[in-house]
């Protein structure tokens, strides 16, 4: 196409927002169009289940930049606009409103959408999911003191909602299918520690409980569990995971496998099309394998790295995965990938609410979870990156600075 086709970015979330900034910062002076279905400028989602829910912040506190920024940077923001198709051979994006955008290079940052529960009553008013600003504000409006909330799914987002609701004086029950909460992201002992914290804060956590349906006339007023127990509620928030928005890419013939498949530079199976953020299944050189991450770090830093590649850089995105969750006064941070390990070494005491769990595989650190010790996770990231064997006794001894392990 013509020289002024420039870059088109589909998906104005955190990744899309960080990408367009990075393109300008890298010196790209051509046309940039950022297409986003939501009415908001790009924003960060973590506060949706934290500050926005527990406090009275306005939605604009989550925005990466204000509208003026995009004007100054000469970035054409198309908000409330949905891309409906990509034509890779003509290098064109079709919008639902009929408009067409030509591109030299295309970036897909369409993120993910919530997984829905297909059980009876799930469509009743009063049953919520939490993904965007409107969801958060609608939930917040119903978290009145004394209201009874059932959270379906004891993942970190469900537990953050539980904590926010407790801070507003709601009666809270968390229903989790697995025997332990946050099963996907922390060690079972750490999950049990968090379940205990919630119980101490007055939230009831029922593990090993499957929800089979919701009941109510005009709105939800009961949750039905598969063991027959029923729970009276004023509202329900479901947090059972997300799915990448890959339909556009798939229809365009790009390689998709639980995420748009990209290399360490964010390149899809079409050399002019890139992807980043939640939607991208990327090759991570540090881990030596493909991985799809659903995290703030990845949305920001992968997007920046890929945007630079689109502008001519040849630096791969290579970071040890890291993310966090805030519940009550606890800051939980997780790094590495905790899917295979043969030993967990603890540093510090759970009773002090400051401790770190280190996951080892054949004596090599592969992951860590820390509670209120963010610095430990920072050192853990470095240790994981180095791939070196670590001394278990030193790891377990809070008197030995982790820095000395890095130097060892």
């Amino acid at each position, binding site marked *: 196409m013509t020289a002024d086709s420039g870059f088109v970015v589909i998906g104005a979330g955190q990744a899309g927002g*960080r990408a367009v*900034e990075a393109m300008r910062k890298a010196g790209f002076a051509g046309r940039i169009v950022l297409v986003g279905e939501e009415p908001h400028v790009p924003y*960060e989602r973590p*506060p949706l289940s934290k*500050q926005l829910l527990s406090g009275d912040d306005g939605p604009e506190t989550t925005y*990466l930049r204000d509208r003026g920024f995009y004007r100054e940077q000469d970035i054409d923001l198309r908000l409330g606009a949905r891309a409906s198709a990509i034509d890779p051979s003509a290098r064109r994006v079709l919008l639902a409103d009929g408009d067409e955008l030509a591109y030299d290079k295309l970036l897909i940052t369409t993120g993910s959408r919530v997984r829905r529960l297909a059980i009876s009553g799930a469509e009743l008013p009063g049953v919520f999911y939490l993904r965007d600003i409107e969801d958060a504000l609608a939930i917040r409006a119903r978290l009145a003191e004394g209201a009874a909330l059932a959270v379906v799914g004891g993942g970190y987002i469900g537990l953050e909602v539980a904590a926010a609701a407790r801070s507003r004086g709601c009666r809270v029950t968390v229903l989790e299918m697995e025997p332990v909460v946050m099963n996907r992201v922390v060690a079972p002992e750490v999950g049990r520690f968090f379940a205990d914290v919630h119980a101490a804060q007055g939230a009831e956590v029922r593990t090993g409980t499957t929800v089979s349906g919701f009941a109510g006339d005009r709105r939800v007023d009961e949750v039905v569990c598969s063991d027959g127990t029923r729970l009276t509620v004023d509202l329900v928030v479901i947090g059972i995971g997300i799915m990448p928005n890959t339909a556009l890419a798939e229809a365009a013939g790009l390689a998709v496998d639980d995420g748009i498949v990209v290399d360490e530079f964010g390149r899809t199976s079409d050399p002019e099309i890139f992807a980043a953020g939640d939607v991208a299944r990327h090759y991570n050189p540090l881990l030596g394998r493909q991985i799809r991450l659903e995290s*703030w*770090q990845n949305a*920001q830093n992968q997007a*920046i790295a890929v945007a630079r590649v689109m502008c001519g850089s040849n630096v791969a995105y290579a970071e040890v995965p*890291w993310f*966090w969750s805030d519940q009550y006064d606890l*800051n939980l941070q997780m790094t590495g990938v905790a899917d295979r390990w043969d030993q967990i070494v603890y540093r510090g005491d759970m009773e002090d609410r400051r401790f770190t769990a280190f996951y080892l595989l054949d004596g090599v650190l592969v992951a860590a979870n820390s509670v209120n010790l*963010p*610095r430990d996770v*920072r*050192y853990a990231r470095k240790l994981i990156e180095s791939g070196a064997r670590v001394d278990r006794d030193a790891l377990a001894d809070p008197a030995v*600075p982790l*820095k000395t392990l890095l130097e060892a």
Partner: protein
Amino acid sequence: MSDANNAEWHRVAKTSEVTDDEPKAVQVGAEYIALFKVDGTFYATDDVCTHEFASLSEGFVEGDVIECPLHAGQFHIPTGKALSPPVEEDLRTFPVKVEGDDIYVQVPKG
């Protein structure tokens, strides 16, 4: 002690309380200040990150850069400059002097 520009020196810590890897948080009046030591020199900046609410003295120091413990935003310690997303706004810095083994910070009168 006071100064012409309406700022006062406050004794805030002993030099031994601040190490390269572990900065220290101090409070002067209503100001929360982080003390850093980089290559033997002491610096003072705001302790509270300009992104959300985090205490930078609990962050991670690498060279002359402090990384926020919450979302890894980075600041240049000597100048307070915001270096990498998500932080955009710089930190304020405060003059520091050492007398004997005492660290003093100069803070404008509030």
